[in-house]
């Protein structure tokens, strides 16, 4: 089973990468960009075939490692 974990910064947490990209896009002449945030996607391939069990495992992976819940939110997506 394939899964994607999307990790994004919580609203209110400053995002140095997003800010730098925003600035750079402006410098490159792209107008009308109002906000930029950068996040991560972790794509996993799991041996598990049961969706519920896979989701539970992924949730635990996120809490234990993949996301830092002090500053990040995460979302799990099973892609097949």
């Amino acid at each position: 089973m394939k899964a994607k974990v999307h990790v994004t910064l919580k609203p209110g947490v400053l995002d140095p990468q997003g800010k730098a990209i925003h600035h750079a896009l402006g410098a490159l002449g792209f107008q009308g960009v109002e906000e930029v945030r950068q996040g991560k996607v972790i794509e996993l391939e799991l041996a598990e075939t049961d969706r519920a069990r896979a989701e539970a495992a992924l949730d635990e992976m996120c809490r234990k490692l993949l996301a830092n819940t002090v500053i990040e939110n995460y979302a799990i997506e099973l892609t097949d």
Partner: protein
Amino acid sequence: MRSAVIVFPGSNREMDMVAALEQASGKKPALVFHKDTELPEVDLIVLPGGFSHGDYLRAGAMAARSPVMAEVRRRAEKGVPVLGVCNGFQILTEAGLLPGALMRNASLRFVCKNVTLRCENAQTLFTGAMEAGQRMTVPCAHMDGNYFADADTMKRLEDSGGIAFRYVDGEGRTTEEANPNGSLDNVAGVFNETKTVLGLMPHPEDATDPLHGGTDGRALFHGLAEALA
């Protein structure tokens, strides 16, 4: 003062730290490998600088979950002092032993240079040999030293003497130019609630020798050695 320095895969300033601890205490620290689950009886545990696990995913994230950290946490809860420098600071925040998080430097570039620190709380066992407001010049060398905590946490830190060091300029002002990485309120180091855990980004251990990085970092180690003798 008996101390232990934890070696994670990718640690690279463990020997700098060993030299500084030995200079201050006259005793060789024990080196403990990240896969170990036991720690020797020590008065101080140190998490050194480096790029543990390459700092892939997030700086310090994987090291914070390594086997030895369970024991570090247990000791910290018992009140054994823990010092984390640079990557060590990142690991302590990732492990939840210190509040906040260390994000990518605002410049998005690695920065290695001397910075000036101001001691914000001299009433702890780490800062006993310093005066409040004392300034010291020590090098920093990091990619992810941009301290962030939410407003409540910042307030709590501020009110409880939880901020250990701030980046300041030559006149002691917390200016933007003095801040090498974009840290909130120029925070360079923080304590836990009981002031027994300290994390800071710059490297006092690289400022213990007049020929290498100056001697301003000695105060931290000498103060510790005295407090924990």
